[in-house]
């Protein structure tokens, strides 16, 4: 079985609890009523995560003010090291509309389960790294899952997918 055999549940059925990068409690119901774009990552990752955040920043810039209606969130798969303060500093390098979510490991595990996403902690060189689901999840304003933008997907396909949840 792969991570792609199952789709995320609708946002209205999600029940995880996390904390945003401003230290405020977060519940998925806060996303309802607006289209939503979510991805998983962590700040110790120097390659995939900044690349995804830059891509998303570019997409948001391309979409312009229209994208103000989107919820955009990075869920940290490394809550041990990614405090709200660290996430805030990290995200200050990217589009200000991106919100960072972190919290307790149990909250992250529930979030991953709701998204049918996976993450795995791997010991490495006296430290550890994380393997994690790399795509960007898109949801309509009613919270229904619509599609995933894969990590290596051409941006010509990414923008139309986002436009679809904005209409």
């Amino acid at each position, binding site marked *: 079985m792969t991570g792609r055999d199952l789709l995320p549940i609708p946002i209205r059925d999600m029940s995880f609890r996390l904390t945003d990068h401003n230290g405020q409690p977060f519940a998925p119901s806060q996303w309802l009523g607006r289209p939503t774009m979510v991805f998983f990552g962590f700040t110790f990752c120097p390659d995939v995560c900044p690349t995804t*955040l830059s891509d998303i920043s570019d997409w948001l810039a391309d979409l312009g003010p229209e994208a103000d209606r989107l919820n955009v969130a990075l869920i940290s798969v490394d809550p041990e090291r990614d405090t709200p303060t660290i996430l805030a500093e990290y995200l200050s390098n990217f589009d200000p509309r991106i919100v960072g979510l972190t919290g307790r490991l149990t909250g992250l595990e529930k979030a991953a389960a709701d998204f049918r996403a996976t993450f795995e902690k791997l010991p490495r060189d006296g430290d550890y790294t994380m393997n994690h689901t790399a795509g960007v999840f898109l949801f309509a304003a009613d919270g229904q899952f619509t599609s*995933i933008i894969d990590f290596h997907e051409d941006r010509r396909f990414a923008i139309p997918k986002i436009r679809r949840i904005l209409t």
Partner: protein
Amino acid sequence: MKRVILATLVVFAAMPALACETVRVGDIEVEHAWSRATIGADRPGVVYLSIRNTGSTDDALIGVATPIAGMPMLHETVVSDGIASMPHTMSMPVPAGQTAALAPGGFHGMLMGLTQALKKGDSFPLTLTFETAGDVTVTVEVLGMGAKEAECPNAQP
């Protein structure tokens, strides 16, 4: 004026476009070496660059070294079934007559154990070891954390 991590490199730093210039060893040409700023020194840094093999013999990049990191290594980001991982890799092929790159989302230099945070505008030396062509040292420019490609005229990411 750029802030340079090693005082001995100040002379190089006076040439702002150095990271955009092409450095050669044997049949190998290296250019557009860049990195991303880091939050502190605990988080690993990254290196991207472009390599051209102008010869008729296949070569391979087999190592990276820099005084600013205790454990520099080659990684390859792999996305399989939607899951991203970045295993160590022993070498990156640089086939005869072709261009290969350390680039976002693929092969990259991973700088573990940084001696200090990388700040936008810094530059540092990186020595690449090729199986056939041997060693060559390039200057890596540190760009912003959100950078996606080298800031050079006609740069490839």
